[in-house]
């Protein structure tokens, strides 16, 4: 019988904009909450995995790496990993699942810490030096002032508009739904102060057509921790374990402009090859929404609707609301609750499946959730089940 991997403790620091608390301390806050929920001590953690690891050239983007977490939390780690060259953010959790399934680790601490707002207060430390030259993948976009992933994602979204008729009123439902849910999420208070209305959305300034200001997530400061435990180590755990029932990833070349559609279509289709669950079993979805267009690619890629039908699927917002047939981004997503960079989706899926979501808890007794990450040519998805 193959070992199973479970998400046990989850934790999250305060989420803010321009927090002064050091990012390693934010990581500590999230880690303490996660081990407390699991009933573990740092001494029982034997692996530390992250995406993308410490990025020394741009600490605001990723200020904390696995080395210093191991050192600072007094962890005796058998296996660690941090790196950008993974399908997408949640693949760090997927790799941790492999480590426990292989019997290499028993309890792996996975984390993602961001300091993209706070870092602006100390640019010399946290922000990248202004480069004189560009190389690698960015040389194919930056010279044409396609500087941001917003511009690259906009090109995919524009094709969806052109080919399938996606409207701004439809697209706006992602941010509007996110803001409604964020209003019920105590950790989103620094990010969302009021519900977004369709009128406000429609009159927002454009960033890169068809994406407007509200379609782009906002730099935030926070840490999110997810502990992955081996199935044969659950007797050490005091919280309800959530099984990683399946996972999938896809990188369709690492060139945003050489692929026609985001990798969510491949990773979405592949997820169902590794499970007996089907989309009919899914009670809630937590889809990466660094840009509002991306959840549409996950809806279509995972098969909740046909390709091209995503806009009509979310039209009016009732279907994806907390009391709808497929509650989406119930903590607010990154648009509503801050740019936690992927890990927030796993955190919220687990929180909902445990019935711990307080005012924003979805009705019924949810048992199966999908959490996704990535955009453009990279994607990773987790199927999480209480079973």
């Amino acid at each position, binding site marked *: 019988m193959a070992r199973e991997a479970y998400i046990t403790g989850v934790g999250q620091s305060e989420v803010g904009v321009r927090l002064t608390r050091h990012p390693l301390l934010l990581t500590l806050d999230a880690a303490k909450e996660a081990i407390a929920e699991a009933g573990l001590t740092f001494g029982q953690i034997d692996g530390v995995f992250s995406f993308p690891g410490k990025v020394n050239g741009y600490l605001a983007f990723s200020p904390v790496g696995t080395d210093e977490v191991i050192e600072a939390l007094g962890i005796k780690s058998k296996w660690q990993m941090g790196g950008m060259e993974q399908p997408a953010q949640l693949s760090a959790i997927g790799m941790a699942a492999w480590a426990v399934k292989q019997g290499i680790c028993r309890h792996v601490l996975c984390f993602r810490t961001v300091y993209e707002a706070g870092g602006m207060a100390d640019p010399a430390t946290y922000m990248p030096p202004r*480069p*004189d*030259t*560009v*190389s690698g*993948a*960015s*040389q*194919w*976009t*930056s*010279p*044409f*002032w*396609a*500087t*941001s992933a*917003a*511009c*690259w994602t*906009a*090109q*995919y*979204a*524009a*094709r969806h508009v*052109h080919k399938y008729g996606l409207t701004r009123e439809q697209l706006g439902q992602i941010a509007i739904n996110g803001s409604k849910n964020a209003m019920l999420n105590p950790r989103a208070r620094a990010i969302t102060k009021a519900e977004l209305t369709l009128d406000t959305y429609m009159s927002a*300034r*454009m*960033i*890169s*057509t*068809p*994406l407007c200001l509200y379609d782009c997530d906002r730099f935030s400061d926070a840490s999110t921790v997810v502990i992955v435990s081996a199935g044969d180590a659950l007797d050490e755990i005091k919280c309800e374990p959530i099984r990683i029932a399946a996972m999938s990833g896809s990188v369709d070349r690492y*060139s945003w*402009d*050489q692929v026609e559609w985001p990798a969510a279509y491949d990773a979405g289709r592949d997820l169902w090859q590794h499970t007996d669950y089907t989309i009919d079993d899914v009670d809630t979805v937590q889809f990466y929404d660094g840009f509002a267009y991306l959840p549409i690619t996950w809806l279509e890629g995972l098969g909740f609707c046909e390709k091209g039908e995503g806009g009509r699927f979310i039209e009016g917002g009732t279907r994806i609301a907390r009391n709808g047939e497929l509650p989406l981004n119930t903590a607010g997503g990154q648009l509503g609750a801050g740019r936690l960079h992927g890990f927030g989706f796993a955190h919220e899926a687990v929180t909902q499946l445990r019935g711990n979501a307080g005012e924003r808890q979805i009705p019924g007794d949810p048992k199966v959730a999908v959490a996704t990450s990535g955009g453009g040519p990279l994607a990773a998805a987790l199927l999480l089940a209480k079973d």
Partner: protein
Amino acid sequence: MSPPRPRPKLDQENTAFWTGGAEGELRIVHCGDCGQYTHPPRVLCRHCQSENIAASAVAGTGVIDTFTINHQPWAKDLPVPYVIARVALDGVPGVYLTTNIVNCPVDAVAFGDPVRVLFEEQDGIFYPLFERAI
């Protein structure tokens, strides 16, 4: 005054692409064995892994595959709006270039528009931009 465009760091793989405009040529890596093109440029063919490759001049025409009108000034004093497009190159199947569509109002650009290359030089780098060929 527009800020200077970010400058690609020239290396063995990309120099032919970024300097071909000096001779008025848009150069894409072409395989002498299988005949297919590789972009971004590499020292080998991404289709058959042959090392018998060379940067070859292509027609320099294409069609707009998708595009966005960018309104956000990503650099100080950068004039907006401007069009960022993905151009499918004629005769170079499977290769696309991210570029700017210039010499027309931003709202004149449409999917499927035929375009042709023009080069904007800045300190020895020849940026391949495109204009509508209608």
